[in-house]
């Protein structure tokens, strides 16, 4: 059963990120410690990737987050992972994602602005990252 206090307004990715940050680990140190791919974890956290279907993989992630087995957080972690898998229709999801991230100021080697065409491409890329 999902604990409403823990998950009010919080999806799987947000919960994952909160647990990681609360454990005092940056994305880099967390991934280094547990041999995980930062891009993969980042996509999980931003909700751009669904949690793994495999229960063993989910268990490994929960353990990496220092979630004690059979604790309320453990149960909630799995509940939220299952909820995240395709309950929202794809079209609504796409709609919601279309303006989720907009780039503001870039750090480029040349210190130049992007063309509008490149900007459009970039927005598409980061919202599907």
């Amino acid at each position: 059963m999902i604990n409403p206090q823990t998950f009010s307004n919080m999806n799987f990715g947000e919960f994952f990120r909160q647990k990681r940050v609360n454990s005092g680990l940056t994305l880099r140190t967390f991934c280094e410690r547990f041999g995980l791919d930062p891009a993969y974890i980042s996509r999980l956290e931003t909700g751009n990737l669904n949690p793994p279907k495999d229960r063993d993989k989910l268990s490994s992630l929960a353990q990496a987050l220092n979630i004690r087995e059979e604790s309320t957080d453990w149960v909630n972690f799995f509940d939220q992972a299952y909820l995240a898998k395709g309950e929202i229709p794809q079209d609504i999801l796409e709609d919601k994602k279309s303006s989720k991230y907009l780039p503001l100021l870039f750090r480029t080697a040349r210190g130049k602005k992007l063309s509008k065409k490149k900007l459009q491409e970039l927005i598409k890329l980061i919202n599907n990252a």
Partner: protein
Amino acid sequence: MSLSIPRLSYKTIGQIADKFLDGYHPKISLPVPIEEIAEQKLKIKIVPTAKLKENYDIDGFLTSDLAAIFLDLDIYLKYENRTRFTIAHEVGHLILHGDIFKKLNINSIEKLNTLSDKLTDEEYGWIEYQAYSFASQVLVPTRQLFGEIKGKLGRIPTNEMPEVFSPIAQDLLQVFQVSGEVLLRRLQKEGILKL
């Protein structure tokens, strides 16, 4: 849409950087853990993403809601110091320009395009210069820089030739975890090194 970018001097930005460190990293351990500060204290999401550099010549950027910093994945994995600088640079935008962009409320592609049109190259140059200055002074804080040099050379040189620093350059790079270019600029700006 008017931006009214303030023209902040290097010294003023240094004072803002010191205040930032006082608030978010008062113990000033070195290297300054900027990724940790961004994530844990400022609650910014760090999002490494493939192909930003290859396709767009971008090391990283701050999102318009000021809530996330996207970073090129390849650079994130291979070049930690460069990534540290990019994070500090984007945090600089948040600290120095956050209020300006909050007011503009860039929440659509149309508004973003308008901003891009209105922002002159001069304004953009100022914004970038200020974020660069902030990043370098956060990662190489003045007091700690002077302390390290005095500890290693026994004095604070003035307008010295780069050769004077050769014996301690590697140590300083190790301590602050920045690129040689950033360190050289810091030494030059503090009037320690003559370039």
